[in-house]
């Protein structure tokens, strides 16, 4: 896996969800995330998200920006760029400031790109996620 330049982590990568793993629940990350496995539930990060070609996500996704090469059954919300590559399959609504879709990508859903609203919604979702993390840490 790590010899594949598409999934080699950048120096800011915080989490790698590999192809031999299934994650269930509310995943809230801080930092960049690479997904090659299966995620069920919700996936939120304040960093960049890379969804590899072998990944299957059955969750609503929120990130600063995202590159999708795998399958997502759920809504995707990004503050900045959302890029769907030729192997991407998205069944759900997308909301992003900028969207790039190459030939071969499959998208079934609504697309909202009004800059103000998509940024606000993504920013609110991320703020709520961060507050959730802080609350849980304070409870501990």
């Amino acid at each position, binding site marked *: 896996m790590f010899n594949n330049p598409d999934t080699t982590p950048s120096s800011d990568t915080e989490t790698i969800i*590999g192809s*031999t793993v299934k994650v269930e629940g509310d995943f809230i990350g801080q930092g960049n995330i690479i997904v090659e496995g299966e995620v069920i539930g919700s996936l939120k990060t304040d960093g960049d998200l890379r969804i590899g070609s072998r990944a299957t996500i059955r969750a609503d996704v929120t990130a600063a920006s995202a590159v999708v090469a795998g399958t997502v059954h759920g809504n995707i919300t990004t503050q900045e760029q959302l890029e769907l590559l030729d192997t991407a399959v998205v069944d759900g609504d997308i909301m992003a400031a900028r969207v790039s879709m190459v030939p071969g990508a499959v998208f079934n859903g609504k697309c909202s790109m009004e800059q103000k609203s998509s940024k606000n919604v993504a920013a609110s979702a991320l703020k709520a996620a961060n507050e959730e993390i802080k609350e849980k840490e304070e409870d501990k």
Partner: protein
Amino acid sequence: MYLYLYDAFISDKKYEKTITRIEHRLTDLGINGRIARSTLLTNPKSIVRDAVQRGVKTVVVVGGDSLIHKIITGIVGTEAALGVIPLGDEQTLATILGIPKNEAACDVLSARKIENIDVGKVNTTYFLTAASVLSDAIKVTCDDNYSIRPVKKKSQTSVYNFRELPEDTPASYKRFFSPQDGVLEATIEPLSFSLTDNIFKSIGKDRAPKVDRIDSIFPIKKVYIESTEPGKAFPVIVDGQQMLETPVSIEVEPKKLKVIVGKGRLF
């Protein structure tokens, strides 16, 4: 005040001259102290705990990983610092801390460069490197938020505080596994049962597992690991020294251990 805790095996005659040189060097440096010996009849953890409560500021293990693992519970969270004079074969922790073997370690002790490092805790047992479960029939619940299950057979799940990485590791992986980042890293990777690794082990050349065998890395503060097979428990290997059983609760205790380090430390 220094406490020197001698490992049981160094009473062997082959270490006699080395011990004499070490003791002379400690005296020359002005850092000699009380000597205690770990034997079948003594409890090293209690020796250390009592000494720290009486005001000992530095506990030095003269020996190897096994004794270090036994006594860290008595030092974690206190003002005492852990030092090491490595003797014997099992020296993973001394290597991490950058401590040279034999009497050269005395000069490192004298320099007294101290770092605060994280420790991991499995139930009530502390660990410095890793806790590993050699089974794929487990469920790992992370930070009370989400769970991880391996879907591939013959994989192992480990929770690392620190991991030595091979020299050819890409730079982007070197940010993981730091013992000073306040988190542990839960990883999923194939079980290390390769024929090549076993051959190297048999000739005394352990190879640090290549990082490209790691499939997943999750930074976490707390995990709960349980078996998914009803009524069945799996072994949990702690620091390569102690075996517990699932279910286990593992969490990080950030910067809870003071250690004396050398220039060659790996963090």
